[in-house]
């Protein structure tokens, strides 16, 4: 028997660490989804540069939506900061051993890349902007006319997308004090979950927002970028099937990675076994199993499988479930991770 009493009573630290609330899961979710969008868009940009038909793609139109989501994510992150006036300090230093420092600088690179990427679709997505700012129109024309520039943008999108997606997991996994996060699986898991959320988001908005003609409003135009083909014609029906197939693969890989995370932690130290207990039988078990695993992965897997086999019609339900499951995964991992702690193997 070990009984420990303490007089410590620091807010957010005692009795259970709870320094990060809803803001960080929101930031990680949007960050992962933007990373996924960048990778999908980047892949399609490479195809575009090779001369494939633009009508085959949805994701090449995602950058501006990514930009908006990025601002929402960064806004959540800013709300989480306790010393807000000093936020500029992040960009007064580069700390090579700090994942958060790496992430901050990667985000700084992501902004211009997604904005320049958005210029590819400027005339169709935001026609009013192109008319009022001819310089943007000229830039857009120059990029679209040059396969080399489109290819470079594609490579930048893929590279930064992978960096951003993995960073959202690495940020947590480097903290030795939180056993639930102590796994190299967390980076790839958050990356694949981000890809899955990105495919779901593209699918969802493609279903909800009419693609043609482009809305002339700010938000409508940005959302239309998801569904506007490069030409005047709407996307081909098989494009939706492509998204569903991609999401099936991402969900399957996500499930395998979660399994590996469990195996890794459950076969590790007492601290790690206690940490995984938070997900198997602790207070986070219900939301983890029912929302993340069943509703967020297994049900969308089954529904999309049936959709591909044309046994049920395409609906937005799988996409909604994938998005809910992706957010719940971050919510659970951030909350349960903070609740996990090292158990003393030795004592007095």
């Amino acid at each position, binding site marked *: 028997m070990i009984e420990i009493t303490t007089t410590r009573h620091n*807010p957010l630290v005692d009795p259970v660490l709870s320094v990060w609330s809803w803001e960080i899961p929101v930031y990680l979710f949007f960050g992962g989804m933007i990373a996924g969008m960048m990778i999908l868009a980047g892949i399609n940009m490479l195809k575009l540069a090779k001369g494939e038909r633009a009508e085959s793609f949805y994701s090449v139109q995602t950058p501006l939506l990514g930009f908006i989501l990025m601002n929402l994510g960064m806004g959540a992150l800013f709300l989480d900061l306790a010393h807000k006036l000093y936020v500029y300090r992040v960009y007064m230093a580069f700390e090579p051993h700090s994942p958060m420092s790496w992430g901050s600088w990667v985000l700084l690179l992501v902004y211009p890349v997604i904005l320049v990427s958005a210029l590819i679709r400027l005339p169709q997505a935001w026609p009013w902007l192109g008319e009022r700012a001819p310089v943007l129109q000229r830039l857009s024309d120059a990029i679209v006319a040059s396969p080399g520039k489109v290819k470079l943008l594609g490579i930048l999108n893929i590279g930064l997308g992978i960096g951003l997606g993995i960073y959202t997991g690495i940020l947590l996994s480097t903290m030795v004090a939180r056993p639930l996060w102590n796994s190299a699986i967390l980076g790839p898991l958050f990356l694949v979950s981000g890809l899955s959320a990105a495919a779901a988001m593209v699918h969802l908005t493609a279903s909800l927002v009419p693609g043609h003609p482009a809305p002339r409003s700010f938000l409508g135009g940005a959302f239309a970028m998801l569904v506007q083909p490069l030409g005047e014609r709407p996307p081909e029906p098989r494009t939706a099937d492509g998204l569903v197939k991609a999401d099936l693969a991402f969900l399957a890989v996500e499930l395998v990675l979660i399994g590996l995370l469990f195996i890794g932690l459950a076969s590790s130290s007492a601290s790690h076994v206690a940490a995984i207990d938070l997900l198997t039988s602790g207070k986070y078990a219900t939301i983890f199993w029912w929302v993340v695993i069943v509703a967020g992965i297994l049900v969308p897997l089954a529904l999309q499988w049936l959709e591909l086999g044309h046994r049920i019609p395409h609906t937005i339900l799988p996409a909604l479930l994938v998005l809910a499951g992706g957010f719940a995964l971050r919510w659970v991992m951030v909350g349960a991770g903070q609740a996990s702690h090292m158990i003393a193997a030795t004592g007095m």
Partner: protein
Amino acid sequence: MPRFGMVIDTLKCVGCMDCVVACQTENDVPFGHCRDWIVTETRGEFPNLSLEIRSERCNHCDNPPCVTCCPTGASHVEGFGKTVQVTAEKCIGCKACLAACPYGARFVHPDGYADKCTFCLHRVKEGKDPACVSVCPTHCMVFGDLDDPKSAVSQLLKSRKHHTILPEAGTKPRVFYLT
């Protein structure tokens, strides 16, 4: 250059909390927060029980995870004494250091920055002991240079059985408990 550490004799500590009050007074620790605290650990089965009372604080680790995770360099290892310190004007309040510390030694100051024990560096620079050490009525706490083999802390660690908290975390804590 010294490498400061602290040795606390658990056989002398009575958990009176003088060290806690002295710290709060000396460092103007905000109400409802603490930079040091008392832990009472009971082990065994009745009637074979053993008790250890510890005055705990930031361990000023040799391998501090709070420093490596800090994105701005606000958490840093001070040149003088190699102690772990926080520069409030550089801290953005991201709280990564709070999550990274296995000891729960940090808290968010009501002004927004991460705060914790400084080993009373301002006093040490004047040749004084940290406030907690200076007021201890049982003289259970000793502060000094761990790299100086003739210092009181080095002598105690050489002659007495001791342990640190969560050594398995790999942080190499520099607060030692004599048993």
